């Protein structure tokens, strides 16, 4: 079983639109949405939730007003500035439990935290594991790890050939959690200076974690000079540019209709490029 994760560094380059199309093209796979705090893949796949599970993670400190003598020790020692006026701000609390241990009158308890939910769903393209991190919650990396673990278990049980994961933007905790141990990363970029800057950093992360990468330039014709620069850079880095997708409003139209673009405008230039991209990826995944 091989695992493809789609990343980009910069947000809004088209990861989810491409994953939606790969979902429609690939056979014999499990889908996973690893963007757990602003997940969008479900908007293209219309999942029917089969199983909903709670994600309990971390703790939050609570101060008992009755017992608190307002000595101020917890406020002084908290490294996260999460206690003010003898009250804990849950959004700042990182759940370390230091305050509970040092409170001289034992006025602080740690409360388990319901950080979100994760789901196993059916879609018209096969099973999807996805999640919803609670608003302003921490531990997105742990929830991503859980989504991937579930996807792997399902893939093993069903003997699926592939897992296709939609990753989050950035290069931090949830990205590392989506990437580590994957078979291949598809990096979707756009020919803007910000896109290039962010691509370089996400390539660095792939290298750091030893995951091979392929690049796809989305909306390549917005700035062809920058697209050439990306190709030169990738050549230097020994990374293949596997697709050049033109800008076409059909991508937004398909999204509004709630369809992957390969199902909405299946013979247009965007769809043709994505189909070639999938052939390339499937080839890479089945040989290494």
């Amino acid at each position: 079983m091989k695992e493809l994760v789609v990343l980009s560094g910069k947000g809004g380059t088209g990861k989810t639109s491409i994953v939606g199309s790969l979902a429609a093209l690939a056979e014999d796979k499990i889908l996973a949405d690893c963007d757990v705090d602003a997940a969008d893949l479900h908007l293209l796949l219309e999942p029917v939730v089969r199983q909903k599970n709670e994600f309990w993670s971390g703790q939050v400190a609570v101060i008992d007003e009755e017992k608190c003598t307002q000595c101020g020790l917890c406020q002084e020692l908290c490294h996260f500035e999460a206690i003010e006026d003898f009250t804990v701000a849950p959004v700042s609390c990182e759940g370390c439990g230091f305050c509970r241990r040092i409170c001289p009158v034992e006025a602080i308890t740690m409360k388990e935290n319901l950080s979100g939910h994760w789901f196993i769903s059916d879609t018209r393209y096969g099973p999807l594991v996805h999640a919803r991190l609670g608003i302003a919650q921490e531990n997105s990396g742990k929830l991503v790890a859980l989504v991937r673990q579930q996807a792997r278990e399902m893939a093993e049980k069903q003997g699926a050939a592939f897992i296709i994961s939609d990753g989050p933007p950035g290069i931090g905790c949830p990205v590392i959690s989506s990437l580590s141990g994957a078979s291949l990363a598809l990096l979707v970029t756009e020919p803007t200076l910000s896109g290039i800057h962010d691509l370089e950093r996400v390539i660095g992360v792939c290298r750091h974690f030893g995951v091979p990468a392929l690049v796809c330039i989305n909306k390549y014709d917005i700035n062809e000079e920058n697209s050439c620069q990306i190709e030169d850079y990738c050549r230097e880095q020994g990374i293949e540019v596997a697709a050049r997708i033109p800008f076409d409003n059909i991508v937004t139209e398909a999204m509004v209709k709630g369809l992957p673009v390969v199902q909405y405008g299946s013979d247009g230039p965007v769809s043709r490029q994505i189909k070639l991209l999938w052939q390339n990826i499937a080839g890479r995944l089945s040989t290494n």
Partner: protein
Amino acid sequence: MIISVASGKGGTGKTLVATSLAFSLKDRQPVQLLDCDVEEPNDHIFLKPVITQKEVVCIQVPKVDEEKCTHCGLCAEICAYNAIAVVPDRVMIFPELCHGCGACSYLCPEKAISEEGRETGVVEWGDADGIDFVQGRINVGEAMAPPAIRQVRERANADGVVIIDVPPGTSCPVVEAIKGSHFCLLVTEPTPFGFNDLVLAVETVRELNIPLGVVINRAGGEYHKVEDYCRKENIPILLTIPLDTGIARLYSRGVTLAEGMPETQEMFILLWDGIRKILDEGTGSLKR
């Protein structure tokens, strides 16, 4: 006054709005721009600051003095992040798991634990043609963004106008970047993905009790759910930027809108007046 620019979904135009707003205001009053997207900071591409100073971002991780350590195991028991393991004759520290809460060193009965800085990134500042510029950048391979964001935020000078460019999403880095702002601008686009993530972002900002307004970028087309939602939720739409390939091309070359099309500066000044008016009137859709 601190104004944060956030979005939920990546790539909707946060950087465009933050840099163009700063650019448009700089000749009228002192402006500071803080780029808190420390995973993928892009504002420097558009504003080309002259960086004059920098400091490293460190989190304090434990260091054990094996001479003093009795291997009692208390530190491992205390650590909420599993960053310490004690085996019969040795203490193992996993610095990349440590959140730097300081509990282990404070509570060690033998005073055998001291703290040493582990570098996770850098904060840099300087001048961008009259804009006081600050940015943070975490090292490639580093998971934790909040310490770098906190360190950027510490440089805020709230005597003037402070504009914060916030990372995408709705989880801890976003909260860290937004909290303490006087107003939050949410940049969205009229697509199903943009709308879905806008609703999540609104919930996040409301959780923090910060007044908010919306900027619709790449407007036009037939999708009106964003406007309908804002009307229903009584959220002011403070600026609409049309879908325009000219704007996209400028962006791709790393030129911010207000600089590349100076006639748009008026629009950003009106945006600023709109924010001030809301704050003066004390409205701003604080609660549902």
